Protein backbone atom coordinates (compact mmCIF):
# COMPACT_ATOMS: atom_id res chain seq x y z
CA UNK A 1 0.00 0.00 0.00
CA UNK A 2 1.50 3.35 -1.01
CA UNK A 3 2.30 5.84 1.75
CA UNK A 4 0.44 9.15 2.04
CA UNK A 5 2.91 11.24 0.03
CA UNK A 6 3.17 8.55 -2.67
CA UNK A 7 -0.64 8.41 -2.96
CA UNK A 8 -0.68 12.18 -3.37
CA UNK A 9 1.95 11.87 -6.10
CA UNK A 10 -0.04 9.15 -7.88
CA UNK A 11 -3.22 11.24 -7.70
CA UNK A 12 -1.51 14.33 -9.15
CA UNK A 13 0.04 12.27 -11.93
CA UNK A 14 -3.30 10.65 -12.71
CA UNK A 15 -4.93 14.08 -12.93
CA UNK A 16 -2.27 15.30 -15.38
CA UNK A 17 -2.53 12.12 -17.46
CA UNK A 18 -6.32 12.52 -17.71
CA UNK A 19 -5.91 16.21 -18.61
CA UNK A 20 -3.44 15.28 -21.33
CA UNK A 21 -5.60 12.47 -22.73
CA UNK A 22 -8.79 14.52 -22.89
CA UNK A 23 -7.22 17.93 -23.54
CA UNK A 24 -9.20 18.41 -26.75
CA UNK A 25 -12.50 17.70 -24.98
CA UNK A 26 -11.86 19.75 -21.82
CA UNK A 27 -10.19 22.72 -23.50
CA UNK A 28 -10.75 22.66 -27.24
CA UNK A 29 -9.06 25.96 -28.14
CA UNK A 30 -5.73 26.68 -26.40
CA UNK A 31 -4.74 29.07 -29.18
CA UNK A 32 -7.88 31.20 -29.31
CA UNK A 33 -6.88 34.82 -28.80
CA UNK A 34 -9.32 37.17 -27.15
CA UNK A 35 -7.51 40.44 -27.41
CA UNK A 36 -10.11 42.29 -25.37
CA UNK A 37 -9.35 39.97 -22.45
CA UNK A 38 -5.54 40.35 -22.46
CA UNK A 39 -3.69 39.88 -19.15
CA UNK A 40 -6.89 39.10 -17.26
CA UNK A 41 -6.13 37.97 -13.70
CA UNK A 42 -7.23 34.55 -12.39
CA UNK A 43 -10.90 34.71 -11.49
CA UNK A 44 -10.18 34.21 -7.77
CA UNK A 45 -7.67 37.06 -7.85
CA UNK A 46 -10.07 39.60 -9.27
CA UNK A 47 -10.20 38.58 -12.93
CA UNK A 48 -13.13 40.07 -14.81
CA UNK A 49 -13.67 37.54 -17.57
CA UNK A 50 -13.99 34.33 -15.60
CA UNK A 51 -10.74 32.63 -16.57
CA UNK A 52 -9.81 30.32 -13.68
CA UNK A 53 -6.04 30.79 -14.20
CA UNK A 54 -6.27 34.10 -16.05
CA UNK A 55 -5.14 34.91 -19.58
CA UNK A 56 -1.78 35.67 -21.22
CA UNK A 57 -0.60 38.67 -23.20
CA UNK A 58 -2.63 37.59 -26.25
CA UNK A 59 -5.77 36.91 -24.25
CA UNK A 60 -5.41 33.11 -24.44
CA UNK A 61 -6.92 31.12 -21.57
CA UNK A 62 -4.06 29.87 -19.38
CA UNK A 63 -5.92 26.85 -18.00
CA UNK A 64 -6.47 25.57 -21.55
CA UNK A 65 -2.81 26.09 -22.37
CA UNK A 66 -1.57 24.42 -19.18
CA UNK A 67 -3.81 21.43 -19.96
CA UNK A 68 -2.42 21.16 -23.47
CA UNK A 69 1.10 21.65 -22.15
CA UNK A 70 0.63 18.46 -20.13
CA UNK A 71 0.51 16.57 -23.44
CA UNK A 72 3.99 17.59 -24.50
CA UNK A 73 5.50 17.11 -21.04
CA UNK A 74 4.01 13.69 -20.41
CA UNK A 75 4.69 12.45 -23.96
CA UNK A 76 8.31 13.52 -23.72
CA UNK A 77 8.64 12.10 -20.20
CA UNK A 78 7.07 8.70 -20.89
CA UNK A 79 8.23 8.05 -24.46
CA UNK A 80 11.63 9.49 -23.59
CA UNK A 81 12.03 7.09 -20.68
CA UNK A 82 10.93 4.16 -22.85
CA UNK A 83 13.59 5.01 -25.43
CA UNK A 84 16.32 6.00 -22.98
CA UNK A 85 15.55 2.91 -20.88
CA UNK A 86 15.40 0.63 -23.92
CA UNK A 87 18.81 1.74 -25.14
CA UNK A 88 20.35 1.94 -21.66
CA UNK A 89 19.05 -1.43 -20.46
CA UNK A 90 20.19 -3.18 -23.65
CA UNK A 91 23.66 -1.65 -23.49
CA UNK A 92 23.86 -2.32 -19.73
CA UNK A 93 22.99 -5.98 -20.31
CA UNK A 94 25.59 -6.26 -23.06
CA UNK A 95 28.25 -4.58 -20.93
CA UNK A 96 27.49 -6.65 -17.84
CA UNK A 97 26.78 -9.98 -19.45
CA UNK A 98 29.24 -10.14 -22.35
CA UNK A 99 31.85 -8.14 -20.42
CA UNK A 100 35.40 -7.68 -21.68
CA UNK A 101 35.68 -5.55 -24.80
CA UNK A 102 31.98 -4.62 -24.94
CA UNK A 103 32.02 -3.61 -21.32
CA UNK A 104 35.08 -1.40 -21.82
CA UNK A 105 33.69 0.35 -24.90
CA UNK A 106 30.22 0.98 -23.47
CA UNK A 107 31.45 2.17 -20.10
CA UNK A 108 34.07 4.49 -21.63
CA UNK A 109 31.33 6.11 -23.74
CA UNK A 110 29.23 6.46 -20.57
CA UNK A 111 32.20 8.13 -18.82
CA UNK A 112 32.58 10.61 -21.65
CA UNK A 113 28.88 11.45 -21.67
CA UNK A 114 28.86 11.88 -17.94
CA UNK A 115 31.54 14.54 -18.26
CA UNK A 116 29.26 16.71 -20.41
CA UNK A 117 26.43 18.23 -18.33
CA UNK A 118 23.27 16.62 -19.74
CA UNK A 119 21.38 19.85 -20.28
CA UNK A 120 24.41 21.44 -21.93
CA UNK A 121 24.67 18.61 -24.46
CA UNK A 122 20.91 18.46 -24.97
CA UNK A 123 20.77 22.22 -25.56
CA UNK A 124 23.64 22.02 -28.05
CA UNK A 125 22.16 19.12 -30.03
CA UNK A 126 18.52 20.19 -29.81
CA UNK A 127 19.46 23.65 -31.01
CA UNK A 128 21.16 22.24 -34.06
CA UNK A 129 18.57 19.68 -35.20
CA UNK A 130 15.17 20.73 -36.55
CA UNK A 131 12.75 21.46 -33.67
CA UNK A 132 10.23 18.63 -33.22
CA UNK A 133 8.97 16.50 -30.36
CA UNK A 134 10.39 13.35 -31.98
CA UNK A 135 13.86 14.89 -32.35
CA UNK A 136 13.70 16.15 -28.78
CA UNK A 137 12.86 12.68 -27.45
CA UNK A 138 15.78 11.18 -29.37
CA UNK A 139 18.13 13.88 -28.05
CA UNK A 140 17.00 13.27 -24.46
CA UNK A 141 17.43 9.50 -24.85
CA UNK A 142 20.91 9.98 -26.29
CA UNK A 143 21.90 12.24 -23.39
CA UNK A 144 20.47 10.09 -20.57
CA UNK A 145 20.74 6.38 -21.53
CA UNK A 146 23.88 5.83 -19.49
CA UNK A 147 22.07 6.14 -16.15
CA UNK A 148 20.10 3.00 -17.02
CA UNK A 149 23.17 1.30 -18.48
CA UNK A 150 25.21 1.81 -15.30
CA UNK A 151 22.48 0.53 -13.00
CA UNK A 152 21.68 -2.52 -15.14
CA UNK A 153 25.36 -3.34 -15.61
CA UNK A 154 26.07 -3.36 -11.89
CA UNK A 155 22.96 -5.48 -11.26
CA UNK A 156 24.06 -7.96 -13.93
CA UNK A 157 27.59 -8.12 -12.53
CA UNK A 158 26.35 -9.16 -9.11
CA UNK A 159 23.55 -11.43 -10.39
CA UNK A 160 25.88 -13.22 -12.81
CA UNK A 161 27.80 -14.67 -9.89
CA UNK A 162 24.68 -15.90 -8.08
CA UNK A 163 24.20 -19.61 -7.59
CA UNK A 164 20.84 -19.79 -9.39
CA UNK A 165 22.28 -18.18 -12.52
CA UNK A 166 25.25 -20.52 -12.33
CA UNK A 167 22.88 -23.49 -12.02
CA UNK A 168 20.81 -22.36 -15.00
CA UNK A 169 23.96 -22.22 -17.06
CA UNK A 170 25.07 -25.65 -15.90
CA UNK A 171 21.78 -27.25 -16.95
CA UNK A 172 22.29 -25.73 -20.38
CA UNK A 173 20.05 -22.65 -20.44
CA UNK A 174 20.81 -20.30 -23.34
CA UNK A 175 22.10 -16.76 -22.71
CA UNK A 176 18.78 -15.34 -23.88
CA UNK A 177 16.91 -17.52 -21.38
CA UNK A 178 19.24 -16.66 -18.51
CA UNK A 179 18.87 -12.95 -19.22
CA UNK A 180 15.10 -13.11 -19.77
CA UNK A 181 14.18 -15.47 -16.95
CA UNK A 182 16.77 -14.83 -14.28
CA UNK A 183 18.61 -11.57 -14.71
CA UNK A 184 15.99 -9.10 -15.92
CA UNK A 185 13.29 -10.04 -13.38
CA UNK A 186 15.81 -9.61 -10.56
CA UNK A 187 17.04 -6.31 -11.90
CA UNK A 188 13.47 -5.07 -12.47
CA UNK A 189 13.14 -3.36 -9.08
CA UNK A 190 16.11 -1.04 -9.67
CA UNK A 191 15.03 -0.40 -13.26
CA UNK A 192 11.50 0.61 -12.21
CA UNK A 193 12.82 3.03 -9.58
CA UNK A 194 15.30 4.65 -11.99
CA UNK A 195 12.64 4.86 -14.71
CA UNK A 196 10.15 6.61 -12.41
CA UNK A 197 12.69 9.18 -11.28
CA UNK A 198 13.85 9.60 -14.87
CA UNK A 199 10.33 10.54 -16.05
CA UNK A 200 10.53 13.56 -13.74
CA UNK A 201 14.06 14.38 -14.90
CA UNK A 202 13.08 14.30 -18.56
CA UNK A 203 10.03 16.48 -17.94
CA UNK A 204 12.31 18.96 -16.17
CA UNK A 205 14.72 18.77 -19.12
CA UNK A 206 12.00 19.32 -21.67
CA UNK A 207 10.65 22.29 -19.71
CA UNK A 208 14.15 23.81 -19.41
CA UNK A 209 14.83 23.32 -23.13
CA UNK A 210 11.44 24.78 -24.10
CA UNK A 211 12.14 27.65 -21.73
CA UNK A 212 15.37 28.33 -23.63
CA UNK A 213 13.47 28.13 -26.90
CA UNK A 214 15.04 24.92 -28.22
CA UNK A 215 13.56 21.46 -28.80
CA UNK A 216 9.82 21.71 -29.31
CA UNK A 217 8.50 24.02 -32.09
CA UNK A 218 7.66 27.39 -30.59
CA UNK A 219 4.04 27.20 -31.77
CA UNK A 220 3.31 24.15 -29.56
CA UNK A 221 2.06 25.12 -26.09
CA UNK A 222 4.67 23.83 -23.63
CA UNK A 223 5.01 24.64 -19.95
CA UNK A 224 8.60 25.80 -20.32
CA UNK A 225 7.84 28.20 -23.15
CA UNK A 226 4.79 29.55 -21.32
CA UNK A 227 7.00 30.44 -18.36
CA UNK A 228 9.46 32.16 -20.71
CA UNK A 229 6.66 34.16 -22.34
CA UNK A 230 5.35 35.14 -18.92
CA UNK A 231 8.64 36.31 -17.39
CA UNK A 232 8.40 39.58 -19.30
CA UNK A 233 5.14 40.31 -17.49
CA UNK A 234 6.13 38.90 -14.11
CA UNK A 235 5.87 42.21 -12.25
CA UNK A 236 2.31 42.92 -13.39
CA UNK A 237 0.79 39.61 -14.52
CA UNK A 238 2.54 37.01 -12.35
CA UNK A 239 0.03 34.25 -13.19
CA UNK A 240 1.25 33.80 -16.79
CA UNK A 241 4.59 32.36 -15.70
CA UNK A 242 3.59 31.00 -12.31
CA UNK A 243 0.94 28.42 -13.27
CA UNK A 244 2.85 26.59 -16.00
CA UNK A 245 5.90 26.67 -13.70
CA UNK A 246 3.86 25.14 -10.89
CA UNK A 247 2.60 22.48 -13.31
CA UNK A 248 6.21 21.42 -14.00
CA UNK A 249 7.01 21.40 -10.32
CA UNK A 250 3.94 19.39 -9.33
CA UNK A 251 4.63 16.76 -11.99
CA UNK A 252 8.28 16.41 -11.04
CA UNK A 253 7.46 16.40 -7.32
CA UNK A 254 4.92 13.62 -7.92
CA UNK A 255 7.33 11.40 -9.84
CA UNK A 256 9.92 11.96 -7.10
CA UNK A 257 7.42 11.00 -4.39
CA UNK A 258 6.34 7.87 -6.26
CA UNK A 259 9.93 6.95 -7.14
CA UNK A 260 11.01 7.31 -3.53
CA UNK A 261 8.15 5.18 -2.32
CA UNK A 262 8.95 2.50 -4.92
CA UNK A 263 12.57 2.48 -3.80
CA UNK A 264 11.52 1.83 -0.20
CA UNK A 265 8.83 -0.66 -1.18
CA UNK A 266 11.00 -2.67 -3.55
CA UNK A 267 14.17 -2.67 -1.50
CA UNK A 268 13.63 -3.54 2.18
CA UNK A 269 17.22 -2.57 3.03
CA UNK A 270 16.46 1.07 2.20
CA UNK A 271 13.41 1.28 4.41
CA UNK A 272 13.10 4.06 6.99
CA UNK A 273 15.82 6.17 5.45
Amino acid at each position, binding site marked *: MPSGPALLGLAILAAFVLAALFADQIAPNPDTQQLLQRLDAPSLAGGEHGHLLGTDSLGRDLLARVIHGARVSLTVGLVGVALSGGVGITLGLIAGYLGRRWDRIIM*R*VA*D*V*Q*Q*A*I*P*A*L*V*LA*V*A*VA*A*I*VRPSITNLIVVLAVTTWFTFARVVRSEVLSLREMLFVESARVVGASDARIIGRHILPNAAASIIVIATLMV*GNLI*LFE*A*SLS*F*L*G*VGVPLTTPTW*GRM*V*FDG*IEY*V*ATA*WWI*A*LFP*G*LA*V*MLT*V*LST*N*LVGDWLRDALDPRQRR*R
Partner: protein
Amino acid sequence: MYLFQRLVQGLLVLLGVTTIVFALTFVAGDPASTLAPLDTTPAELAQFRHNMGLDRPVPVQYLDFLVHAVRGDFGMSYSSHEPAMGVVLERLPATLRLTGAAVLFALVVAIPLGLLAAMYHDRWIDAAARFSAFLGQSIPVFLLGMVLILVFAVGLRWLPSSGGESWKSLILPAISIGSFSAAVLARLLRSSLLEVLSQEYIRTAYAKGLAGRTVVVRHALKNAALPFVTMLGLQVGFLLSGAVVAETIFAYPGMGRLAVEAISRKDVPVIQSFVTIAAVIVIVANLFVDLVYTRIDPRIRLS
Protein backbone atom coordinates in the same frame (compact mmCIF):
# COMPACT_ATOMS: atom_id res chain seq x y z
CA MET B 1 50.04 6.95 -8.41
CA TYR B 2 46.29 6.91 -7.85
CA LEU B 3 46.01 10.57 -8.79
CA PHE B 4 48.20 10.07 -11.86
CA GLN B 5 45.86 7.31 -13.02
CA ARG B 6 42.87 9.57 -12.56
CA LEU B 7 44.61 12.34 -14.48
CA VAL B 8 45.24 10.04 -17.46
CA GLN B 9 41.63 8.88 -17.27
CA GLY B 10 40.45 12.49 -17.26
CA LEU B 11 42.50 13.25 -20.39
CA LEU B 12 41.03 10.21 -22.17
CA VAL B 13 37.53 11.34 -21.27
CA LEU B 14 38.38 14.79 -22.62
CA LEU B 15 39.51 13.18 -25.88
CA GLY B 16 36.12 11.45 -26.06
CA VAL B 17 34.37 14.75 -25.38
CA THR B 18 36.15 16.37 -28.34
CA THR B 19 34.87 13.54 -30.55
CA ILE B 20 31.28 14.32 -29.56
CA VAL B 21 31.94 18.03 -30.00
CA PHE B 22 33.40 17.36 -33.45
CA ALA B 23 30.33 15.29 -34.34
CA LEU B 24 28.15 18.33 -33.56
CA THR B 25 29.41 19.95 -36.78
CA PHE B 26 27.77 17.17 -38.76
CA VAL B 27 24.56 17.04 -36.77
CA ALA B 28 24.19 20.67 -37.79
CA GLY B 29 23.99 19.62 -41.43
CA ASP B 30 26.21 21.04 -44.13
CA PRO B 31 28.08 23.94 -42.47
CA ALA B 32 28.77 25.47 -45.88
CA SER B 33 25.12 25.98 -46.72
CA THR B 34 24.43 27.36 -43.21
CA LEU B 35 27.21 29.90 -43.52
CA ALA B 36 27.08 30.95 -47.12
CA PRO B 37 24.73 33.73 -48.22
CA LEU B 38 21.44 32.58 -49.72
CA ASP B 39 22.23 33.60 -53.29
CA THR B 40 25.48 31.61 -53.51
CA THR B 41 25.87 29.59 -56.71
CA PRO B 42 26.74 25.88 -56.46
CA ALA B 43 30.21 26.62 -57.84
CA GLU B 44 30.85 29.24 -55.18
CA LEU B 45 29.56 26.83 -52.55
CA ALA B 46 32.02 24.17 -53.69
CA GLN B 47 34.84 26.74 -53.57
CA PHE B 48 33.72 27.76 -50.08
CA ARG B 49 33.71 24.12 -48.95
CA HIS B 50 37.19 23.68 -50.34
CA ASN B 51 38.46 26.79 -48.56
CA MET B 52 36.97 25.62 -45.26
CA GLY B 53 38.45 22.15 -45.76
CA LEU B 54 34.98 20.58 -45.68
CA ASP B 55 35.61 18.47 -48.81
CA ARG B 56 38.27 16.35 -47.09
CA PRO B 57 37.56 12.85 -45.70
CA VAL B 58 35.95 12.91 -42.23
CA PRO B 59 38.89 11.25 -40.37
CA VAL B 60 41.27 13.85 -41.82
CA GLN B 61 38.90 16.61 -40.72
CA TYR B 62 38.73 15.06 -37.24
CA LEU B 63 42.51 14.93 -36.87
CA ASP B 64 42.73 18.50 -38.08
CA PHE B 65 40.02 19.47 -35.58
CA LEU B 66 41.94 17.75 -32.76
CA VAL B 67 45.27 19.38 -33.66
CA HIS B 68 43.59 22.77 -33.50
CA ALA B 69 41.51 21.91 -30.42
CA VAL B 70 44.62 21.00 -28.41
CA ARG B 71 45.78 24.57 -28.95
CA GLY B 72 42.36 25.87 -27.93
CA ASP B 73 41.52 26.78 -31.51
CA PHE B 74 37.89 25.95 -32.28
CA GLY B 75 37.61 28.24 -35.29
CA MET B 76 36.04 31.65 -35.62
CA SER B 77 32.65 32.56 -34.22
CA TYR B 78 30.20 32.76 -37.10
CA SER B 79 28.67 35.94 -35.75
CA SER B 80 31.47 37.99 -34.16
CA HIS B 81 34.33 36.60 -36.34
CA GLU B 82 36.62 36.41 -33.33
CA PRO B 83 38.19 33.15 -32.09
CA ALA B 84 35.23 31.16 -30.66
CA MET B 85 37.16 29.83 -27.67
CA GLY B 86 38.25 33.32 -26.70
CA VAL B 87 34.68 34.55 -26.83
CA VAL B 88 33.60 31.78 -24.42
CA LEU B 89 36.64 32.08 -22.11
CA GLU B 90 35.94 35.77 -21.69
CA ARG B 91 32.65 34.82 -20.03
CA LEU B 92 34.09 31.91 -18.01
CA PRO B 93 35.06 33.85 -14.84
CA ALA B 94 31.51 35.18 -14.46
CA THR B 95 30.05 31.66 -14.69
CA LEU B 96 32.67 30.28 -12.28
CA ARG B 97 31.79 33.00 -9.76
CA LEU B 98 28.10 32.13 -10.11
CA THR B 99 28.51 28.36 -9.79
CA GLY B 100 30.97 28.90 -6.94
CA ALA B 101 28.35 30.95 -5.11
CA ALA B 102 25.79 28.22 -5.84
CA VAL B 103 28.08 25.55 -4.33
CA LEU B 104 28.56 27.74 -1.27
CA PHE B 105 24.81 28.14 -0.90
CA ALA B 106 24.25 24.40 -1.34
CA LEU B 107 26.82 23.57 1.36
CA VAL B 108 25.58 26.19 3.82
CA VAL B 109 22.05 24.78 3.50
CA ALA B 110 22.75 21.07 3.09
CA ILE B 111 25.19 20.47 5.96
CA PRO B 112 23.06 21.89 8.82
CA LEU B 113 19.88 20.47 7.29
CA GLY B 114 21.32 16.97 6.88
CA LEU B 115 22.89 17.05 10.36
CA LEU B 116 19.71 18.21 12.08
CA ALA B 117 17.58 15.69 10.23
CA ALA B 118 19.88 12.84 11.26
CA MET B 119 20.25 13.97 14.88
CA TYR B 120 16.50 14.41 15.29
CA HIS B 121 15.61 11.32 13.28
CA ASP B 122 11.84 10.83 12.93
CA ARG B 123 11.04 14.02 14.83
CA TRP B 124 9.38 17.07 13.29
CA ILE B 125 12.74 18.64 12.35
CA ASP B 126 13.50 15.53 10.31
CA ALA B 127 10.11 15.64 8.60
CA ALA B 128 10.47 19.35 7.81
CA ALA B 129 13.98 18.82 6.42
CA ARG B 130 12.85 15.95 4.23
CA PHE B 131 9.90 17.95 2.96
CA SER B 132 12.03 20.95 2.02
CA ALA B 133 14.55 18.64 0.36
CA PHE B 134 11.76 17.16 -1.76
CA LEU B 135 10.62 20.62 -2.78
CA GLY B 136 14.17 21.71 -3.56
CA GLN B 137 14.69 18.68 -5.75
CA SER B 138 11.51 19.25 -7.72
CA ILE B 139 11.40 22.98 -8.32
CA PRO B 140 12.70 23.97 -11.76
CA VAL B 141 15.46 26.59 -11.84
CA PHE B 142 13.30 28.91 -13.93
CA LEU B 143 10.35 28.76 -11.51
CA LEU B 144 12.47 29.37 -8.41
CA GLY B 145 14.32 32.16 -10.24
CA MET B 146 11.05 33.80 -11.16
CA VAL B 147 9.61 33.56 -7.65
CA LEU B 148 12.83 35.00 -6.19
CA ILE B 149 12.67 37.91 -8.66
CA LEU B 150 9.05 38.48 -7.78
CA VAL B 151 9.70 38.52 -4.02
CA PHE B 152 13.18 40.01 -3.58
CA ALA B 153 13.54 42.23 -6.66
CA VAL B 154 10.03 43.35 -7.58
CA GLY B 155 8.36 43.18 -4.16
CA LEU B 156 10.95 43.96 -1.49
CA ARG B 157 13.46 45.66 -3.85
CA TRP B 158 16.36 44.22 -1.85
CA LEU B 159 18.32 42.67 -4.67
CA PRO B 160 18.77 43.32 -8.39
CA SER B 161 16.82 41.10 -10.80
CA SER B 162 19.41 41.20 -13.56
CA GLY B 163 22.99 42.01 -14.48
CA GLY B 164 26.34 40.92 -13.08
CA GLU B 165 28.03 44.05 -11.80
CA SER B 166 28.13 43.49 -8.03
CA TRP B 167 28.14 40.53 -5.65
CA LYS B 168 24.51 41.31 -4.92
CA SER B 169 23.49 40.25 -8.41
CA LEU B 170 24.99 36.80 -7.65
CA ILE B 171 22.65 36.00 -4.77
CA LEU B 172 19.34 35.27 -6.49
CA PRO B 173 20.70 33.26 -9.44
CA ALA B 174 23.03 31.30 -7.10
CA ILE B 175 20.07 30.31 -4.91
CA SER B 176 17.99 29.22 -7.91
CA ILE B 177 20.85 27.07 -9.21
CA GLY B 178 22.06 25.73 -5.86
CA SER B 179 18.80 24.65 -4.25
CA PHE B 180 18.60 21.40 -6.24
CA SER B 181 22.10 20.40 -5.11
CA ALA B 182 21.36 21.57 -1.57
CA ALA B 183 18.39 19.19 -1.49
CA VAL B 184 20.29 16.23 -2.95
CA LEU B 185 23.26 16.76 -0.61
CA ALA B 186 21.07 17.20 2.49
CA ARG B 187 19.24 13.94 1.77
CA LEU B 188 22.49 12.09 1.16
CA LEU B 189 24.13 13.48 4.31
CA ARG B 190 21.10 12.50 6.36
CA SER B 191 20.96 8.93 5.10
CA SER B 192 24.72 8.32 5.33
CA LEU B 193 24.80 9.80 8.84
CA LEU B 194 21.95 7.49 9.87
CA GLU B 195 23.87 4.59 8.39
CA VAL B 196 27.06 5.49 10.27
CA LEU B 197 25.22 6.22 13.52
CA SER B 198 23.94 2.64 13.64
CA GLN B 199 27.51 1.23 13.58
CA GLU B 200 29.17 -0.48 16.52
CA TYR B 201 31.96 2.06 17.04
CA ILE B 202 29.41 4.84 17.43
CA ARG B 203 27.78 2.87 20.21
CA THR B 204 31.22 2.46 21.73
CA ALA B 205 31.78 6.21 21.55
CA TYR B 206 28.48 6.79 23.34
CA ALA B 207 29.29 4.06 25.86
CA LYS B 208 32.55 5.68 26.89
CA GLY B 209 30.51 8.74 27.80
CA LEU B 210 31.07 11.15 24.89
CA ALA B 211 28.42 13.79 24.40
CA GLY B 212 25.97 13.33 21.52
CA ARG B 213 27.32 16.30 19.61
CA THR B 214 30.92 15.14 19.89
CA VAL B 215 30.00 11.71 18.59
CA VAL B 216 28.19 13.12 15.58
CA VAL B 217 30.81 15.72 14.68
CA ARG B 218 34.00 13.79 15.48
CA HIS B 219 33.05 10.27 14.47
CA ALA B 220 29.96 10.17 12.31
CA LEU B 221 30.49 13.27 10.18
CA LYS B 222 34.02 12.19 9.24
CA ASN B 223 32.77 8.87 7.94
CA ALA B 224 29.78 10.35 6.16
CA ALA B 225 32.11 12.76 4.35
CA LEU B 226 33.19 10.38 1.55
CA PRO B 227 29.83 9.86 -0.17
CA PHE B 228 29.08 13.55 0.44
CA VAL B 229 32.19 14.69 -1.40
CA THR B 230 31.51 12.26 -4.25
CA MET B 231 27.99 13.60 -4.64
CA LEU B 232 29.29 17.17 -4.53
CA GLY B 233 31.54 16.32 -7.47
CA LEU B 234 28.60 14.86 -9.38
CA GLN B 235 26.63 18.05 -8.76
CA VAL B 236 28.99 20.21 -10.82
CA GLY B 237 27.32 19.11 -14.06
CA PHE B 238 23.85 19.92 -12.70
CA LEU B 239 25.07 23.31 -11.48
CA LEU B 240 26.42 24.17 -14.93
CA SER B 241 23.14 23.04 -16.52
CA GLY B 242 21.27 25.23 -14.05
CA ALA B 243 23.59 28.14 -14.82
CA VAL B 244 22.52 28.06 -18.48
CA VAL B 245 18.90 28.59 -17.43
CA ALA B 246 19.57 31.02 -14.56
CA GLU B 247 21.91 33.22 -16.59
CA THR B 248 19.13 33.56 -19.17
CA ILE B 249 16.50 34.57 -16.59
CA PHE B 250 18.73 36.95 -14.67
CA ALA B 251 20.44 38.37 -17.79
CA TYR B 252 23.72 37.39 -16.15
CA PRO B 253 26.75 37.88 -18.42
CA GLY B 254 28.14 34.32 -18.18
CA MET B 255 29.01 31.72 -20.78
CA GLY B 256 25.65 29.95 -20.44
CA ARG B 257 23.76 32.96 -21.68
CA LEU B 258 26.38 33.38 -24.40
CA ALA B 259 25.74 29.79 -25.48
CA VAL B 260 21.97 30.31 -25.60
CA GLU B 261 22.55 33.36 -27.80
CA ALA B 262 24.97 31.37 -29.97
CA ILE B 263 22.33 28.68 -30.34
CA SER B 264 19.76 31.01 -31.82
CA ARG B 265 22.37 32.03 -34.40
CA LYS B 266 23.53 28.41 -34.97
CA ASP B 267 27.02 29.64 -34.13
CA VAL B 268 28.52 26.14 -34.03
CA PRO B 269 32.15 27.00 -33.07
CA VAL B 270 30.94 28.93 -30.01
CA ILE B 271 28.59 26.06 -29.03
CA GLN B 272 31.47 23.60 -29.45
CA SER B 273 33.80 25.71 -27.30
CA PHE B 274 31.12 26.03 -24.64
CA VAL B 275 30.44 22.28 -24.48
CA THR B 276 34.18 21.60 -24.26
CA ILE B 277 34.73 24.13 -21.46
CA ALA B 278 31.75 22.74 -19.52
CA ALA B 279 33.22 19.24 -19.80
CA VAL B 280 36.67 20.47 -18.73
CA ILE B 281 35.11 22.04 -15.62
CA VAL B 282 33.36 18.76 -14.75
CA ILE B 283 36.54 16.72 -15.29
CA VAL B 284 38.70 19.11 -13.25
CA ALA B 285 36.10 19.18 -10.47
CA ASN B 286 36.13 15.40 -10.30
CA LEU B 287 39.93 15.31 -10.20
CA PHE B 288 39.69 17.74 -7.31
CA VAL B 289 37.21 15.41 -5.60
CA ASP B 290 39.71 12.56 -6.03
CA LEU B 291 42.35 14.75 -4.41
CA VAL B 292 40.08 15.49 -1.44
CA TYR B 293 39.26 11.79 -1.27
CA THR B 294 42.88 10.80 -0.73
CA ARG B 295 43.15 13.38 2.03
CA ILE B 296 40.07 12.12 3.85
CA ASP B 297 40.61 8.42 3.41
CA PRO B 298 44.17 7.10 3.73
CA ARG B 299 43.06 3.68 2.45
CA ILE B 300 42.74 5.09 -1.07
CA ARG B 301 46.15 6.77 -0.98
CA LEU B 302 47.90 3.59 0.13
CA SER B 303 46.21 1.03 -2.10
